[in-house]
């Protein structure tokens, strides 16, 4: 797999430090399942955190801390951890973990909802009220309705590809868009583009007709 669009350091650091909420983390971790290079960068950040941990000042150590720990150990039985590889899902699997736990194994089982204009989506429920996560299916050769964002948007390609300006995004590529960026992603011809997208708040579509139907579609 040839991934050309990666996670930013800021986003990776948020994930490495445990400060990224569920919705963003789902997309970030699904990208990393396909991207060894971002996993190496994550490992380097966790290494940096480890080096910082070694330097943390120890204060207020309770005198009985070790004794209490030792007592706790006596009550623990070790369970052997069996590493059983997950069964290979059947069919055309496009969804790696952790996404698969949220939407199932493959495309054929997705219960798409029509968005109009030939596009479909599936809202992915999470426990994270600060984000909205969706799968999107954009028909081959068709544009995604143009939109600006409130805050950040992350889009991960799972199948097909799209072009945004001069950049081509294929499977595994992630696009990180900020406020105010008006972009016009367009699915490449030949194959529908399936994306995992997370946003901070409902999208503001800039085309008046889409803006008009947005509250009805709840997109």
């Amino acid at each position, binding site marked *: 797999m040839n991934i050309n669009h990666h996670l930013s350091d800021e986003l990776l650091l948020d994930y490495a430090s*445990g400060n990224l909420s569920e919705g963003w983390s789902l997309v970030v971790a699904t990208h990393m399942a396909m991207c*060894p290079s971002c996993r*190496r960068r994550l490992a380097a950040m966790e290494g940096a955190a480890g080096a910082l941990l070694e330097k943390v*000042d120890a*204060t207020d*150590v309770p005198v009985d*801390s070790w004794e209490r720990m030792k007592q706790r150990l006596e009550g623990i039985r070790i369970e052997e951890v069996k590493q059983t590889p*997950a069964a290979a899902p059947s069919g055309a699997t496009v969804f790696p*973990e952790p996404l698969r736990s949220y939407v199932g194994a493959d495309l054929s089982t997705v219960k798409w909802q029509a968005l109009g204009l030939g596009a479909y989506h599936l809202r992915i429920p999470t426990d994270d009220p600060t984000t909205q996560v969706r799968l999107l299916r954009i028909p081959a050769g068709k544009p995604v309705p143009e939109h600006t964002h409130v805050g950040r948007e992350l889009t991960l390609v799972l199948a097909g590809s799209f072009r945004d300006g001069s950049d081509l995004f294929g499977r595994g590529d992630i696009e990180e868009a900020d406020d105010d960026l008006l972009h016009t992603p367009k699915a490449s011809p030949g194959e529908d583009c399936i994306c995992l997208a997370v946003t901070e708040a409902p999208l503001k579509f800039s085309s008046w007709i889409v803006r008009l139907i947005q509250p009805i579609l709840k997109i």
Partner: protein
Amino acid sequence: MTQTKNQTLSNDEMAGLLKAIASDRSVDAFEAVFRFYSPRVRSFMAMKTGDRQIAEELMQETMVSVWNKAGQFDPERGNVSAWIFTIARNIRIDFYRRRRPAFDPQDPVFVNDDIPSAEMEFERVQDAALLRDAMATLPPDQLDVLKRAFFDDVSHSTIATDLGLPLGTVKSRIRLAFEKLRSALEGRR
């Protein structure tokens, strides 16, 4: 076993202790690991929670997890401090009842690193000695931003507000810091 709490064992020595915990359930080996890491993990927990008792409890949870999972530590893949950091971080996330989806290397769709492991820089990205040296060369303002991100568990915009800086400055410090760390780690090849 006596061990001064600030004595830094080498990463290889720590990895050896974890191995003894995993294979022999050695309480002595665990005590050495505990004496070094528990005060640091407790402080780490106190930074976010601001409560000594909660910090002690979360530290104990972390160390129980180290005891239970010692066999899962892979010295080829990383260093002990980084591994213990990730355990502590995950326990802190659980405490705040947040979910953090993670990739699964056992997943059949998981894309493995195709760089041959002998040449792989992966094992080097957590080279403990290199990291320590590289961190020591970071300018204080960049180091400060990293500490706040890892230990205070706050967003970059909160860091910017706390420091009275534009968000862009915080982001560029993060980028500069990691560029420097990566080039230090890759320089070994």
